[in-house]
């Protein structure tokens, strides 16, 4: 189903989320678990900081030379037998995927987890073209059944508890109710197995694209990713251009950082490196491989002051530690990507006009900066977007007037003192005049401020 962007209603969305106690309990439990597991997974790594430096430097190099790496990837992947398509925006990407699938008569499409496919709203487009699209990642399977969008980039159903999933499966699949996670997984596996075996095509994303070899790298846990990319005769992969890595030699640093940062695992159950379609003598693999490289504004981001967000490797660690995300979950952010990285990407990809409340959705506590495996300066990027919001005139007029007054008073001590005295004298009025949320939570200004108590 299609999801309209609701980022402009961020505050209203959060008010709703804060009242949803199962959601809040699920968020607390999941993010705490990830936090602990992440810390445990990194504890034995003596060279963690050097590893982060190395990964960060590789990503910097990729961004500094992105057009070259993309061209190299296209050439290598083509040589390996894949067909590479370039999509400049979401609608081109949707159309390319739909065309490739429909030209080959695909009716049933199984999908591996892909946030880029969410970004371009692929499913609704394929469904409108008459195809049945089945998400096969367990979390994605759950939220597709519920008609929701992912609320976390790697744990899409993080906001749900097992009882909710149990009721959903009982309602929609006609199975007896159970809230045992293993039993629920078995139910999903049985339903999905039939889909894998009868699917006409598999659509996946990719964690990395290796420029030298033209390989796609998928880092997964459930095995569905491997089924999607090898069982059907046709595999279509969709990924954004910045996912390049120069060579396979660069991969190990990321294979050490990504699972530890994401789920606190030292490694995932599966790492798939797919280089071209099935060749003569290969036992598995799709017979035909199409790769759709999505730009959707990335080239423009690359030349701007927020370019460092393109270093992101989508581990989700920043959202797991974000106090705001942790309190309200991913849906209030109102688009594909939530949490600190989502604030930045959503604003850049959808534009300030559609997303400006998001740039205030951070306390600037810096917890995200502390955990980012590739050293994306998320707090600085958010500050940069706040400056842009002011420049482009999206800030609240009352805030603007207040800040202009602040700027004048902060440079003129007499004015500052006067403001201080007025605030003290008229505090009840400040509270009454709509300041109840703020002034009501602050103490009354002191009768004698520090400046008049000291010699």
């Amino acid at each position, binding site marked *: 189903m299609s999801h309209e962007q609701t980022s402009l209603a961020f*505050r209203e969305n*959060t*008010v709703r989320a*804060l009242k949803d106690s199962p959601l809040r309990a699920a968020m607390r439990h999941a993010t705490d678990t990830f936090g602990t597991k992440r810390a445990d997974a990194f504890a034995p790594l003596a060279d963690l900081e050097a590893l982060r430096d190395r990964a960060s430097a590789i990503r910097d190099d990729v961004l500094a030379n992105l057009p070259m790496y993309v061209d190299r990837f296209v050439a290598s992947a083509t040589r390996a037998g894949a067909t590479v398509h370039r999509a400049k925006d979401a609608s081109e990407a949707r159309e390319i995927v739909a065309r490739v699938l429909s030209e080959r008569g695909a009716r049933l499409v199984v999908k591996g987890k892909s946030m880029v496919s969410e970004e371009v709203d692929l499913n609704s487009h394929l469904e409108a073209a008459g195809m049945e699209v089945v998400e096969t990642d367990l979390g994605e399977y759950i939220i597709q059944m519920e008609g929701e969008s992912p609320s976390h980039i790697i744990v899409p159903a993080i906001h749900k508890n097992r009882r909710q999933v149990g009721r959903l499966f009982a309602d929609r699949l006609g199975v007896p109710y159970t809230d045992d996670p293993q039993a629920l997984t078995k139910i999903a596996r049985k339903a999905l197995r039939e889909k894998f075996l009868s699917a006409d095509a598999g659509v996946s994303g990719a964690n990395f694209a290796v420029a030298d070899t033209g390989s796609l790298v998928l880092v997964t846990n459930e095995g569905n990713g491997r089924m999607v990319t090898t069982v059907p005769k046709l595999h279509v992969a969709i990924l954004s251009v910045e996912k390049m890595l120069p060579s396979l030699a660069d991969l190990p640093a990321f294979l050490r950082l990504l699972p530890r940062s994401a789920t606190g695992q030292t490694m995932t159950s599966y790492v798939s490196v797919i280089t071209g379609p099935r060749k003569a003598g290969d036992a598995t693999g799709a017979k035909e491989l199409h790769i759709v490289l999505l730009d959707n504004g990335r080239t423009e981001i690359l030349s701007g002051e927020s370019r460092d967000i393109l270093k992101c490797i989508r581990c989700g660690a920043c959202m797991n530690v974000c*106090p*705001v995300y942790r*309190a*309200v979950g991913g849906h209030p952010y109102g688009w594909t990507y939530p949490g600190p990285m989502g604030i930045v990407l959503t604003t850049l990809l959808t534009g300030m006009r559609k997303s400006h409340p998001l*740039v*205030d*959705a*951070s*306390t*600037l*506590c*810096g*917890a995200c*900066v*502390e955990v980012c495996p590739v050293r994306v300066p998320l707090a600085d990027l958010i*500050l940069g*977007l*706040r*400056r*842009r*919001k*002011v420049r482009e005139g999206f*800030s609240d007029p009352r*805030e*603007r007037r207040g*800040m*202009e007054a*602040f*700027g*004048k*008073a*902060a*440079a*003129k*001590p007499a004015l*500052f003192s006067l403001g*201080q005295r007025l*605030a*003290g004298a008229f505090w009840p009025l400040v509270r009454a005049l709509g300041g109840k*949320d*703020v002034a009501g*939570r*602050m*103490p009354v*200004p*002191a009768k*004698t*401020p*520090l*400046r008049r*108590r*000291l*010699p």
Partner: protein
Amino acid sequence: MKVLLFGTCLVDTFFPEAGEATVRLLRRFGAEPVFPKGQTCCGQPAFNAGFEAQARAAAKHFLWEFDGDDPIVTPSGSCAAMVKHHYPRLFRDDPSLLAKAVRAGERIYELTQFLVHVAKAHEAGLRGKGTITYHASCHLTRSLGVREEPLTLLSSLKGAIFLPMPDAARCCGFGGTFMAKLPEISCALADEKAASIEATGADTVTGCDSGCLMNITDAMRRRGTRIRVAHIAQLLAEGL
């Protein structure tokens, strides 16, 4: 040693007792605090909200008021971090102010930094009482890197018991103008922080930033919790 005291706008306006306690502590350890009378605010409210011109006006004024070579001491991790890390950005296109900004960043100490590294206050056998827990504010911890100093001071207090707080460095939800723009989340985070404080069983909670302590006090009031909230300067000064 002469030190310039930067009170910060919050302490100056709402919590002058924390400023007076800072003065008493500095004097006790042989420093001569001077309060530049023209000081206002470091500019952080404007800077964090994206109003760069207004932040620059405040910062420029700060650099004027705190000019010289004397150390600057402030009872706030957040304001110290603003001067140290963000002033250079504000003046990146102005070489003479940039040099002053960098120099101010080198001269500024958050109070506990000064007390431990310069004054060695943790070796002075200060007295304390009751049970104390500590909230590690965000900018103090992650931007300024001050993690151990407050703990060193608190655990040195004779007669007081220090009780660590779970997730002490998790944000309390203050966030400056964040508390005004998204008050519902701000209160929810403060509530969670208050619950962590209550779970320690301590009778006093302390910290190095008045903004956070103010937010925590409000959450305590809403919850009807009777735990004392005091700036670390006040707690330490009581033991002089």
